[in-house]
């Protein structure tokens, strides 16, 4: 897609102040990697998220440790492309600088309970006549009985409905790896900001957008609300308003992870049962699937159940890598379950030059690439800043003169 690329990102003219914690920082990253000028203020002790793991393992002499001592790979990933401004809440000049920064922003991304909360008057920033767009990310919205509840990712995922779907009968409900719930609220925060920018540009309105992490998670649960609303009617699953957690098995029962001779593989006979059946016939593993009962459209559930049973027996005899490639050659969407180590060597990612280098703790480290590709204004990955690295530059940008210091 490189033939018409330009150097500036899509959001090159957008000025953003990033006052987020884990709940919103992914949204600020999405904007920064698309070229917005995203300034992330830090208190004198440094951004609290610089303590989050994993960390670069440094040598004994500490040769890899950067000037500000930050070795957090969490921070390197989530704070990419920011500029850092030191703000001392106890210092009147610093507070004035911070206020001016906010006044010159197009978009302010804010999370309640952020270290800067005492410096941010969100009611004033969202009052009529203000020119800034305020994206206010909170765990449960601005009011209601749970508004003050504390919700790290595991609690947010529990209350939001994600955990109840994940795990199986031999495990408790499980959270997704890492903090995937907060990557949903982060993505929504970016959408809120960009939609508000569009409204400002086309309708001349500046506004506040409240983003509830709880609602964000609940809006991305695939089958959960569908079963509650339609199980007894259009879904024809009487009494199944709530599906129990069922491991890797999809709500349709037509996708699941099976174990082969040397690993796991996601197996499905969809979208073309006949194609899968033909393969099983070739392999003489079709059991009784040619019986007339399975070709009656009214017996789809029976067909799915029996097919999955036969597939499990068949897959157990297979080398999963060979099975995956053979399935894909037949346009059947099996998925080889990959450990993370193998994802780093994935031929598709390597074939697309997907990974990028990112400067972290004095080293160039291979890093995840773009989640999307824009033909004229490409996504760009830049380093996360050292603490306060851009303070002088930012103060100059906002017109803070030396005689004010």
């Amino acid at each position, binding site marked *: 897609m490189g033939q018409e690329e330009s150097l500036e990102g*899509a*959001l090159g003219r957008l000025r953003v102040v990033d006052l987020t914690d884990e709940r919103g920082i992914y949204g600020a990253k*999405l904007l920064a990697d*698309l070229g917005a000028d995203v300034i992330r203020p830090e208190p004198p002790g440094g951004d609290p998220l610089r303590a989050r793991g*994993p960390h670069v393992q440094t040598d004994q002499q500490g040769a890899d440790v950067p000037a500000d001592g930050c070795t957090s*790979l969490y921070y390197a990933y989530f704070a990419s492309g920011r500029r850092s401004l030191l703000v001392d809440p106890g210092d009147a000049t610093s507070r004035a600088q911070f206020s001016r920064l906010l006044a010159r922003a197009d978009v302010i991304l804010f999370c309640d309970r952020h270290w800067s909360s005492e410096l941010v008057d969100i009611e004033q920033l*969202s009052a009529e006549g203000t020119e800034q767009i305020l994206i206010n990310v909170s765990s449960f919205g601005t009011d*209601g009985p749970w508004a003050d509840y504390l919700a*790290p990712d*595991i*609690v947010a995922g529990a*209350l939001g409905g994600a*955990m*109840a779907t*994940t795990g199986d009968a031999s*495990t408790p409900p499980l959270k997704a790896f890492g903090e995937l719930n907060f*990557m*949903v609220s982060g993505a929504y925060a*970016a*959408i*809120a900001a960009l*939609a*508000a920018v*569009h*409204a400002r540009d*086309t309708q001349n309105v500046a*506004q506040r*957008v409240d983003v509830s992490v*709880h609602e964000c998670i*609940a809006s991305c649960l*695939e089958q959960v*609300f569908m*079963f*509650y609303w*339609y199980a007894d009617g*259009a879904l024809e699953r009487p009494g199944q308003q*709530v599906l129990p957690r069922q491991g*890797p098995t999809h709500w349709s029962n037509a996708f699941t*992870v099976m174990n082969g001779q040397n690993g*796991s593989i*996601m197996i499905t006979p969809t979208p073309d049962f006949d194609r899968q059946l033909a393969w099983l016939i070739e392999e003489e593993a079709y059991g009784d699937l040619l019986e007339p009962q399975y070709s009656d459209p009214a017996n789809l559930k029976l067909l799915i159940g029996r097919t999955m049973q036969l597939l499990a027996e068949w897959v157990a005899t297979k080398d999963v890598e060979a099975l995956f490639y053979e399935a*894909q050659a037949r346009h059947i*969407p*099996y998925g080889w*379950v990959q450990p*993370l180590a193998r*994802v*780093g060597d994935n031929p598709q*990612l390597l*074939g697309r030059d997907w990974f990028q280098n990112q400067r*972290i703790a004095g080293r160039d*480290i*291979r890093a*995840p690439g773009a*989640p*999307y*590709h824009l*033909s*004229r*204004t490409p996504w760009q990955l830049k380093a996360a800043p050292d603490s306060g690295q851009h303070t002088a530059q930012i103060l100059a940008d906002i017109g803070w003169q030396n005689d004010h210091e």
Partner: protein
Amino acid sequence: MSRPLDGLRVLDFSHVLAGPFATRVLGDMGADVVKVNSESRAITSNAPDHPYYIMWNRNKRALSLNMAEASAQALCRQLAQQADVVIDNFSVGVLDRWGVGYDTVSAANPGVIYAQMSGMGDHGPWSKFVTYAPTIHALSGLTSLTGVPGREDIGLGFSYNDHQSGLHGAVAILAALAQRQASGRGQRIEVSQFEVGVNFAGPSLLDLFANGVAAQATGNDLPYDAVAPHNVYPCRTVPEPSLADERWIAIACMTDAQWQALVGLLGSPDWATEASLQTAPGRVAQRAMLDKRLAEWTRSQDDYELMARCQAVGVPAGVVQNGRDLCERDPQLARAGFQVAIEEPHPTVGQTWADRLPLNFSQTPCDDYQRVRMLGEDNAAILEDWLGLTAEDVAQHEVDGVLK
């Protein structure tokens, strides 16, 4: 009142979940999303009366086009010339064959933002591979990472990556719109759902490349940070519960102060006041014992009452809510009007519902939720609004078999 994307025209060639979720978000925010379907494709989960379709296609208008007909392809090209956004998640090359590929459309409509969402992207050795969300979860590492230590066969219980691909598609489209506002020019966007999925392991991939450490499933523990307790615990339930009837509560002490508050709730038993448990590393080292003790404590308690007691003293805790809980017991979702009973009955299903867009715009609220439209239900209105066709023109197209 206006909505943020009022006036934006979106021509939607998407199906299943990822693409339709992107256009659902745009439609909820006021874009005029024209969903293109056809008689031959409107089956199973692509049929307007299938609950799966109903979930992702509210707030869109329905156009039916028989793309096997040259006249339908010509109409489609005219519609694409009027679109601000074209979104495609057919297999690579299908829209090109219909004459509405990026090169053709952008030549006639240089302002168009043309988003192509595919499983693997448009080039690379796996670009022809077919995928659904469970395929992507498996290939991207999300399945092997989500589970308990020693197992790689659990994974996520819903199509997380489809939702996220839709959201990322929307982010990219809105960014390109902002850029077009400045430059007047559109562009092409390519979204590989696989790359979206791999991206979610970002910090772990950096750990792999910087330190050679490959993350593995950690159950309900945080993979990198010393936090304990950080798990779910059983609560009081009906006798002999089914899996769906079980009650659980998540409790996470992210700080020593939160642990001390929890100890107070526990009644400060001797085991909990041990010096070794007053710091996070000490608690992490004794995680199994902590989990056992806490489960003994929670097992006889009501989940919602216990959550309220924990939160009242500053301990992060949350009931593991299922769909019924979200719909019937969750005061925050009720207060937000999250479940919307759509006013106009669906022609065949009757009452349908929407889960509200979780964004509350102060000046351009998104409170309008219209039912899913049947195949071709808006043909005449769309062709008049976008192309200025008369009722007679549309009737002739009907007769010619173009609109089916």
